[in-house]
């Protein structure tokens, strides 16, 4: 009989519900040898995989061996508990957003954005702010209820913050693309600290984005929301207008991401 998925306890699925199969690959800094294979199996077992299996391994250079493995994951997660957490929000369309702002905010929303630090990747922030936008969706510049300042890339956090203060911004939008050695984390953290040091945190919506930014990470770092790949300007705008309306009316909505 067709089996129903128990959303309270889901596991990886390969071809039988509950089989738990996970593919893995990694390099170990050990010489290519049968012992290396054994080490990989032991590691996978230590991590907690059952029936770990090395399906491929080869030498990369002396002392380094690459592995492709499979293993059965015995843990499961309660998916049903996650659905409620405000994740799967409905986005408004450009039009709906404009009408919502007119009704619930009643004035133009001012946003300032940049790709900060030494990061010169500007395509992400441009996609959010410039008229051209992304994949046929206008950037916020194209919304008549938004006033946008795109400072471009390589912008020091201090410059971004001054600008926000200068134009009395409702939101600061930061883009970060270079992530090696967690450079983005350092950079994003610095801005929050500066905003707090200036005592402006509660007046400002802080949102960040980038291919390896997530809503979870953003919140951990003290932002109101984080956006990753696949974000369209109206996703960002939905979040901003709801958040702002909530703040204006004194309550808060769960953040999107």
């Amino acid at each position, binding site marked *: 009989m067709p*089996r129903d998925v128990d959303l309270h306890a889901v596991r990886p699925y390969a*071809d*039988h519900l509950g089989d738990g*199969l996970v*593919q893995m690959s990694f390099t170990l800094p050990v010489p290519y040898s049968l012992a290396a294979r054994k080490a990989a199996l032991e590691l996978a077992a230590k991590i907690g995989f059952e029936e770990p299996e090395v*399906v*491929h391994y*080869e030498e990369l250079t002396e002392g380094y061996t690459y592995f492709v493995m499979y293993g059965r994951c015995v843990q499961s997660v309660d998916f049903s508990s996650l659905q409620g957490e405000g994740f799967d929000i409905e986005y408004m369309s450009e039009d709906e957003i404009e009408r919502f702002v007119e009704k619930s905010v009643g004035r133009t929303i001012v946003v300032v954005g940049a790709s900060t630090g030494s990061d010169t990747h500007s395509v992400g922030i441009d996609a959010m702010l410039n008229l051209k936008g992304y994949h046929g969706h206008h950037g916020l510049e194209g919304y008549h209820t938004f006033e946008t300042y795109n400072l471009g890339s390589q912008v020091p956090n201090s410059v971004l913050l001054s600008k926000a203060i200068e134009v009395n911004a409702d939101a600061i939008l930061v883009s970060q693309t270079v992530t090696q050695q967690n450079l983005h984390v350092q950079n994003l953290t610095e801005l929050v600290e500066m905003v707090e040091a200036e005592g402006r945190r509660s007046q400002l919506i802080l949102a960040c984005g980038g291919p390896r930014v997530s809503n979870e990470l953003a919140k951990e770092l003290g932002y109101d929301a984080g956006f990753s790949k696949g974000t369209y300007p109206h996703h960002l705008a939905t979040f901003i207008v709801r958040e702002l309306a909530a703040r204006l009316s004194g309550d808060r909505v769960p953040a999107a991401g």
Partner: protein
Amino acid sequence: MSAPGGPPVGRSKLGLDPGVVEACREAARRIAGDVAAHIAGRTTVSVERSVTRLLGVDGADDLEVPLPNVLVDHVHDRGGLDRGIAYWLGNAMLMSGKGPQQIAEAVSAGELDLLDLERGEDESIRACVSDATRANLQDIAAGFERRAEMRERIGDRGGTLRYVLTATGDVYEDVVHAKAVAQAGGDIVAVIRSTAQSLLDYVPYGPTTEGYGGTFATQANFRIMREAMDEWSEEHGRYIRLSSFCSGLCMSEIAAMGAREGFDNMVNDALYGILYRDINIVRGLIDQRVSRMINGWFGVTINTGEDNYLRTADGIEAAPSVTASQFINYQLARDSGVPDAQIGLGDAFEIDVPVTNGLLFEWAQAQLTRELFPACPVKYMPPTRHMDGNLFRTHAVDALFNLVTIATSQGIQTIGVPTEGIFTPHIQDRVLGLQNVEYVFNTARDLGEEIEFKPGGIIQSRAHEVLAGALVLLERIADVGLFAAIEQATFGDVSRRVDEGRGIDGIVETGESYMNPVVELMSAAPREGAPASYA
């Protein structure tokens, strides 16, 4: 229900010698003629079971013995099969006024002995059983008509069809995989059989959830897949075809079962069972003839299994045996009444990965197959033999396989998957494979039209060489006969003897009064509504 061939092959890119091609065809005709002579005057237990199935017999007894087996064994045990099961069933129908299913149930219950019954006139029996068969065939054919309309209405893909296996072992999991396959652009979902079903001289009954390396081909499993895919097709506006295996010891029965569920496609090749499952040559070829006849008549596209040879023999050296086999398989299919547009000849991309200019050789062979059989929807198979546990390596090879497929406009492509060298692919592996296909087919859509091959270059020379090799082989086979050639390990480096192998006991010499309304009706007239190309 035929799969469209790929776009038409334009002007020859290979500069083949028409004389050589004609000589190959001629040798293949001799070989096929010789096979036909050998198997004439014989039937098999499974051919007889297909007759009962096409008369509507289904179900199984308490010991899970399918009723078609009960019926045929009943007659065979009593030495009556030389007249054909249809004779005995027809007689029982005539005498008892009951339908085939009721009769089968009565036999199964031990309440009826078919050979003990009073006998009617031969002509009355023939008329009775033919009428019943005709009604059944028309019923099934009407299903195919409705299906053709449905495909028309829903929409169908032009160009190369993407053929994808599901093989979880559990039909309900197969449904999940099949939906993912459909969503990712698969066109034909093949319900791969549980391993060793080939060896069963019966078809299991009912829905099954425990198979190894595949899911049993049963009437119920076929139906479950069919319903799921029809639903998907209606919802998503692209028609999904279904396929399974007519191979092993029940080739013709599975053809009958697939027809009932409107399966659009069938792998149909006795050589697989003969070479790799040690099924007796004669048994295999008799079953194949009827099996192909049924597929052909209902408009089902068949796929032959030349790809398998390259899994045990070398991709470069054995290429001529593939081409030779295509000529033979083509002729055998035609002789069973399968029109060109339904003959999906097998071919595969199996040259070893580190061979210099391997891609050029593959390209040559793929183009050769297309030019030799321009009206046939060749089924082109992915690299498997030389794939290993390095998922990325397999995926890169698949990308070039996809490129050759589209550049040579193959009619059907079985997609490659990154885990091909490891295990029966997981759900995401099928999707990743299909994404590779979608990318390459689209980004290189018109490449085949754009390029020409250097005259006398590596590609042309390779094609000529393979064709010449095929001719040598075909002429040798025509001289000694296919049976002796198989014994000489001509295909896949495997040798089998004509007087050995599984299922040999199931061969039955037919008497003069042998009756087989399925073969008779199908030979007499094409299915109503069959496309004009039906020859």
